[in-house]
């Protein structure tokens, strides 16, 4: 009995630790007073200011656009690459997979700095394109790693059977292989999307010329101190994620 209540208290404290900062941000996003300690009454002022803040709107736009582009492009390249890698010889496969692992294992700052060096060395101005290329680069490895296990599980003879029955290789790929590996592709695409949305370090080094994402904007605002608009932004982003997860959860429950 004692152990049970200790467990309960420990769990409670742990979740308090995890959620206290987030909940505080949410509460203070409705605070009229600029200082955080004092409660100056309920207001939606910071939300209004947020929607009129050109810098944040701009950053939001770039975050979403880059996330969509990099998710789509890296999913296409990554899936095709996974099929190719799957059919490579043992040694070639090992070499390619090890290089593929580099951006996953390397500290983000090293990836960021090395890409920045590349872009500047080859005189590509830092901006939208450089950031997009960087995002695609760090997203593809995750897509490859999500799709490869599905290819390994695939029954080799299915595609052969389809082609024996007269299907062209591309038709067999679309109708037989693709549906089988779809779960891996979807996982990879979702990972790419969330990684891109959440990225700070690599974007920080590869963005430039008025192009920035939400993470970079929050960083530069936070360095100048507390800004209630960030609280409002956090509340909106956290609510969006919560709603998204609830929808996904409801869909999986319904499917079962």
């Amino acid at each position, binding site marked *: 009995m004692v152990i049970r209540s200790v*467990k309960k208290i420990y*769990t409670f404290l*742990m*979740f308090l*630790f*995890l*959620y206290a*900062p*987030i909940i*505080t*941000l949410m509460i*203070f996003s409705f605070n009229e007073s600029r*200082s*955080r*300690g004092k409660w100056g009454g309920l207001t939606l002022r910071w939300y209004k200011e947020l929607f009129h803040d050109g810098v944040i709107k701009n950053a939001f736009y770039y975050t979403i656009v880059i996330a969509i582009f990099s998710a789509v492009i890296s999913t296409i*390249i*990554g899936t095709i*690459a996974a*099929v*190719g*890698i*799957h*059919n490579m010889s043992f040694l070639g496969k090992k070499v*390619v*997979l090890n*290089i593929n*692992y*580099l*951006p996953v*294992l*390397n*500290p*983000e*700052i*090293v990836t960021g*700095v*090395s*890409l920045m*060096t*590349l872009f500047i060395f080859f005189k590509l101005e830092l901006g939208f394109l450089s950031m997009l290329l*960087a995002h695609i680069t760090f997203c593809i490895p995750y897509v*490859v790693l999500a799709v490869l*296990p599905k290819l390994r599980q695939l029954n080799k003879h299915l595609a052969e059977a389809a082609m024996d029955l007269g299907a062209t*290789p591309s038709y067999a790929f679309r109708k037989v292989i693709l549906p089988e590996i779809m779960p891996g592709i979807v996982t990879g695409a979702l990972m790419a999307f969330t990684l891109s949305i*959440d990225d*700070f*370090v690599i974007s920080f*080094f590869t963005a430039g010329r008025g192009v920035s994402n*939400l*993470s970079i904007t*929050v*960083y530069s605002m*936070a*360095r100048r101190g*507390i800004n209630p608009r960030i609280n409002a*932004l*956090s509340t909106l982003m*956290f609510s969006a994620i*919560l709603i998204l*997860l609830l929808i996904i959860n409801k869909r999986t429950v319904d499917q079962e």
Partner: protein
Amino acid sequence: MRTNQKILAYPYIVWLIIFIVVPLILVLYFSLSFRDGGITLENYRRFISPVYGKVLYRSLKLAFISTVFCLVLGYPMAMIIAGADITKRNLMVLLFVLPMWMNFLLRTYAWMTLLGKNGVINNILGYFNLPALNLLYNNGAVILGMVYNFIPFMVLPIYSVLAKMDKTLIEAAKDLGANEITVFRKIIFPLSLPGVITGITMVFMPAVSTFVIPKLLGGGQFMLIGNLVEQQFTYVYDWNFGSAISIIMMVFILIAMAIMAKYEDPMEESGGLW
């Protein structure tokens, strides 16, 4: 057919060469040359000097302390989650992952609101007529930020190992007269080691290379190795020195990863480097 499909990997191989291999070679080249050309080891020699040695020492120390905190706080939590019944367990895992879905910068920023001089904690203290504390811009704040951001990386791998563990082993040990402590020491902990090692790797690596947490919660006066790299590339423009530190950091982390990979669960198809 098989040989034909191989060519599908070629576009990506080209991509890998351009965006992964060439940049790293460039960084290596910069690290080995003077600003105006010429091959040298000067950049590496500079890093060994006491000033930068201190930075490296501080980064390793803070990352180590944070990892210990994550392990000590996270292990019991993983055990509690693994011990709960299935519906509660899934909910707890979800609640643990949920904050990770929130932007990393925002999570770190949240602590600035709590710890600041006029922050929430100091206001609560003031309400009870207690003196205000200097909570922000010190080592403690940096460690707190690291623990807060990285503790899920410790809890989740340990939890997944504990959840898969064969419960009959524990029962057998108890039948043979082992008490709770012996069961933990001789059975549960040794079997959970692969999860512990994964957790340590996943906390230590980002903690040692982060530059955001020391910048925001340490106020920038606490220079860690990540800040040093960032500074060389964005303020000082000493790319050669910055490249040398990056190469050292990369080699250090890849070696650590390779060692850790040897201890990981051989049953799991992890397939990392080496």
